[in-house]
C-alpha cells in the first residue's frame, strides 16, 4: 500500500477513542472488585468489621494505601504515553513513605524494648505482603493489558508503575481483612506488599508491554 493511500484511509477514521484515564480507572474498578471478592470468599473480613470504621488506625492504613494507589496512578498514567515521566508519582510515593516511615520509627523508638517486636511484627507479618500481592495480581494483569494498548516507551518503568497502582488498590481492600493496628507494621509489611507487584510489573514490562 502506498503511504499516501494509507494516510487517506486513516483520515477517514477519526472518531475520538477512549482516553488514558478512563481506561486505567476501569482496570482499577474491576481489579478492586475482584480483590473484594477474594477478601469475602477467601480471607474474610476483620473480626471487628463494622466497628472498625470508627477506628482512626483503620483510616490511617486506608489513607496510606490510597496515597500509594494515587502515586501509582500518576506514574502509570504518564508512563503509558510516549516520552512520559513518572517523576511526579514517584515523588508522592517517596514523600508518603518518608513521612509515615519517620512517624513509625519515632513510635518504635519510643516503645518499651519488650513491646518493639510485637509493634513491628503484629500477628500476620508472615502473610501480609503475600496476601496484598495476591489481591493485586488480577488488577495487575488487567492494567498491563490496558497499558499495552496505550503507548509506553519505557516498558520496565511502566510495568513497575502498573504494579504500584495495583498494589495500592489491593492494600486498600486488604484493610477490610487485616486487623493490624500499628504504624511500624504498616510501614514495613504493607509497603512490601505494594512493592512486590511493582517488582513483578517491572520484570514483566519489557516482555508483555511491547506493542506494534
Amino acid at each position, binding site marked *: 500500500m502506498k503511504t499516501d493511500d494509507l494516510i487517506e484511509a486513516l483520515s477517514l477514521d477519526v472518531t475520538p477513542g477512549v*482516553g488514558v484515564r478512563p481506561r486505567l480507572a476501569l482496570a482499577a474498578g474491576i481489579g478492586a472488585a475482584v480483590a473484594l471478592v477474594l477478601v469475602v470468599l477467601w480471607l474474610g473480613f476483620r473480626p471487628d468489621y463494622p466497628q472498625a470504621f470508627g477506628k482512626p488506625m483503620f483510616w490511617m492504613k486506608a489513607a496510606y494505601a490510597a496515597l500509594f494507589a494515587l502515586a501509582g496512578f500518576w506514574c502509570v498514567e504518564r508512563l503509558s504515553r510516549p*516520552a512520559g515521566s513518572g517523576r511526579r508519582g514517584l515523588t508522592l510515593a517517596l514523600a508518603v513513605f518518608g513521612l509515615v516511615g519517620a512517624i513509625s520509627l519515632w513510635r518504635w523508638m519510643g516503645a518499651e524494648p519488650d513491646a518493639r517486636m510485637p509493634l513491628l511484627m503484629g500477628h500476620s507479618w508472615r502473610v501480609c505482603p503475600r496476601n496484598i500481592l495476591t489481591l493485586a495480581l488480577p488488577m495487575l494483569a488487567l492494567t498491563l493489558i490496558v497499558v499495552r494498548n496505550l503507548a509506553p516507551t519505557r516498558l520496565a518503568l511502566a510495568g513497575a508503575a502498573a504494579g504500584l497502582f495495583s498494589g495500592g488498590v489491593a492494600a486498600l481492600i486488604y484493610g477490610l481483612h487485616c486487623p493490624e493496628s500499628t504504624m511500624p507494621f504498616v510501614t514495613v509489611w504493607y509497603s512490601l506488599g505494594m512493592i512486590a507487584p511493582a517488582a513483578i510489573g517491572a520484570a514483566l514490562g519489557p516482555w508483555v508491554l511491547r506493542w506494534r
Partner: protein
Amino acid sequence: MAADLEDRLKALMVRGQAGDAAAWRELLSLLGVRLRAYFARRMDASAGSDVEDLVQETLLAVHRRRMTYDPAQPFTAWAHAVARYKLIDHWRRNRIRQHVPIDDVAEWLAEPEAESASTRGDLDRVLSVLPDKQQKLVRDVKIEGLSLAEAGARIGISEGAAKVSLHRALKALIARNSGVED
C-alpha cells in the same frame, strides 16, 4: 522555526484528536515526510523499502494511539518518542541489518530537533578534520538523508566508492572523537 513547527503540528494533533479529518490528514502527511528523513538517516542505504514500511507502521501507531498524546506536553517529543520506539523495535526484529558503528555516529551527528546554531557549529568543527569531499558525503548521506548513489553522484564518484569513502570518513571521525569529552 522549530517552535513554529511545534505549534503547527500540535494544533493539528489537537484538532485530529477531536475528530477533524482534514487536520488529521495534514498532520499524517507532514509527519510522513519527517519520519522518512528520520528513518533514512538512521538506516542502511540499502534498506529503502524498509524505511517506507517503517514510516507506514509508525503512522499507523500514531493513528491508533493518538489518545496517548497529552496537549499539555510538547508534541515533537511525543512524536519523536514514537518514532524512536518503532526504530528500536525494527532493529530488534531484524538484528542482522543493523550497522552499529554508522548508527552510533548518525545518532549524535544528526538530531534534527536539537540542531541549533551551536550544534551546527560543533558539527562543522567535528567534520573539518575530513577532506572536503568526505565532509560533503557525510552531510549528504547522514544529515540530508540522500542515498549513497545520489550523494556519490554529487561529488562525482560511484555508489560503491561512496560507500567505501563514507565508511572511512565515519571511522576516522570515531577514531578522532572516541574518548574525547568537551
